[in-house]
């Protein structure tokens, strides 16, 4: 009963947040700069949350998330620009094709462990980028023109569904199987969990949402280029997850919000931004190797706080 209460609270808050922001946009109180930052933040949250499922929950260190983002961006751009189909179709197609890419990459490379997996996914992401670079149909290195279609409503719906699906997946039997793989793969295998199946499943779900984020990302700009989806983009997404805590969904979201604000302010100083990012990465890893929040969620802190004040209500 507690779970469903939390669920409705989540839905209520998010719909309220949507309505308030939509009213503010319609009333012209949020100018283009702020609403764009908001959309960008939401796209980053989608990317961070989808990577969180792969790294934080399943414990598979993937460095190729920008590859799925690229697949989603290009596929959606082809659907809207070349095939002249509506935007929702493009978002769905981006997700589906990215999932297929995730399966193609995941099935062979998830047999690898640790840093080997990281390097293999990095290699796959680079291959995807080079493939787009060499296809004349999508404009090669010069990039592809895209119309601006992303707005707050589309972004919100995608973000909402992403978080909803990933939270429910994490709390389900499948999610617990994934967490057991993170904690100890050999033990999980010995307990009869089909580790390959769950690793590929988590990878494919992560790829799906990265693909949808790619569709929004592409249609938020006027042009997409293969150079946007390089190694650095993967690192950007990785930093959100690592900073928030390897295994904490709310941590990833909070870190993404903070870092998006920071990077918006430092837009004109890219080196400074990257120096800050890299120092943050090194310091966090040296002193808190599990990330700032570890596997704690924000709601856990509330519980702790309440628990220390007056004891737990359930008498646990």
């Amino acid at each position, binding site marked *: 009963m507690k779970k469903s209460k939390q669920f409705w609270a989540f839905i209520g808050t998010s719909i309220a947040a949507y309505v308030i922001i939509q009213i503010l946009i319609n009333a012209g109180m949020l100018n283009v700069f702020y609403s764009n930052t908001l959309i960008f933040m939401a796209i980053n949250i989608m990317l961070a949350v989808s990577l969180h499922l792969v790294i934080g929950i399943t414990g598979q*260190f993937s460095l190729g998330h920008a590859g799925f983002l690229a697949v989603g961006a290009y596929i959606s751009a082809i659907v809207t620009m070349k095939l002249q189909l509506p935007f929702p179709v493009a978002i769905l197609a981006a997700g589906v094709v990215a999932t297929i890419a995730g399966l193609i990459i995941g099935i062979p490379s998830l047999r690898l462990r640790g840093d080997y997996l990281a390097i*293999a996914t990095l290699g*796959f992401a*680079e291959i995807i980028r080079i493939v787009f670079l060499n296809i004349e149909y999508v404009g090669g290195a010069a990039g592809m023109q895209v119309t601006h279609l992303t707005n707050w409503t589309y972004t919100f719906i995608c973000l909402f569904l992403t978080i909803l699906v990933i939270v429910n997946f994490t709390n389900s039997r499948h999610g617990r199987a994934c967490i057991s793989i993170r904690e100890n793969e*050999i033990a999980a295998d010995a307990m009869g969990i089909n580790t390959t199946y769950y690793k590929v499943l988590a990878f494919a779900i992560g790829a799906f949402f990265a693909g949808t984020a790619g569709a929004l990302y592409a249609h938020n700009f006027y042009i997409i280029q293969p150079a946007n989806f390089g190694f650095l983009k993967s690192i950007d997404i990785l930093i959100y997850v690592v900073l928030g805590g390897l295994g904490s969904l709310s941590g990833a979201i909070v870190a993404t919000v903070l870092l998006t604000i920071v990077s918006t302010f430092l837009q004109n100083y890219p*080196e400074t931004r990257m*120096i800050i990012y890299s120092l943050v990465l*090194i310091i966090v*890893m040296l002193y808190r190797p599990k990330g700032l929040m570890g596997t704690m969620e924000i709601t856990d802190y509330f519980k702790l706080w309440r628990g220390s004040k007056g004891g737990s209500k359930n008498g646990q």
Partner: protein
Amino acid sequence: MEWLQQLINGISLGSIYALIALGYTMVYGIIKLINFAHGEVFMIGAFIGFYSIAGWGFGFIPALLLSMTVCAIIGVIIERVAYKRLRTATRIAALITAIGVSLLIQNGVIYMRGAQPEAYPEVLANKSYNLFGAQISSQAILILSVALVLMIILQFIVHKSKIGKAMRAVSYDSEAAKLMGINVDTTISATFAIGSALAGAAGVIFGIYYTKIDPLMGVIPGLKAFVAAVLGGIGIIPGAMVGGLVLGVVETFVSALGFSLWRDAAAFVILILILIFKPSGIFGKNTREKV
């Protein structure tokens, strides 16, 4: 004799990869860490070579030695500051730190001197010799001889010297090595110093061969050298040399066949194939995972 020409080009490129790959493989062999910052040490080596030749008027050999020394020091500093605390941490934490160090060095260099590329000065007259119809430039000969000499010295250090013996012992079993009285910290520092010095030398000869350097030049050769190390069997020193040469030759032939834009992809395709079919590399033996 087109293929012979391409083979010579490939070997020149491959010996640069091999020099960088040696550092990766030595560090991986000893502390099981992919030192992502290794490509950045290579870049710093190239810049020190550039400043000492173009700015301070050094000759080739002094510039090479200076750059190797500075890179060795930088390698040891990186190890002491960033990696030492993480020896017992998870592999993911160590890898993320290495990525962080790599980004920090790249952007630190851009911050200090800007991102613009530099043209490398010519240190020796570019003559070319004819060999069975293929042209060998004096620079290619220089690269090959420097690489060869350094690799022979490395073999000597690893197999004949005391520190080499300690390195092999630590990479075999660091706990047991400690019990036998080997100073593990010093040995790891020495490994970083030697590997980074080789990367520095690779940076200088890369600059002379390609005549253009910039602060982001370390990324792609760094990744490819890692591929070379995996290809030969990571942790195995002769494997890194062979892997580097193979990769260089394959890449040159891919571009010679008219797929120059796909050149970078070739390295990663090789990487993925080798990881899938023989993850231990050409020279590697299969090891069982301990529970």
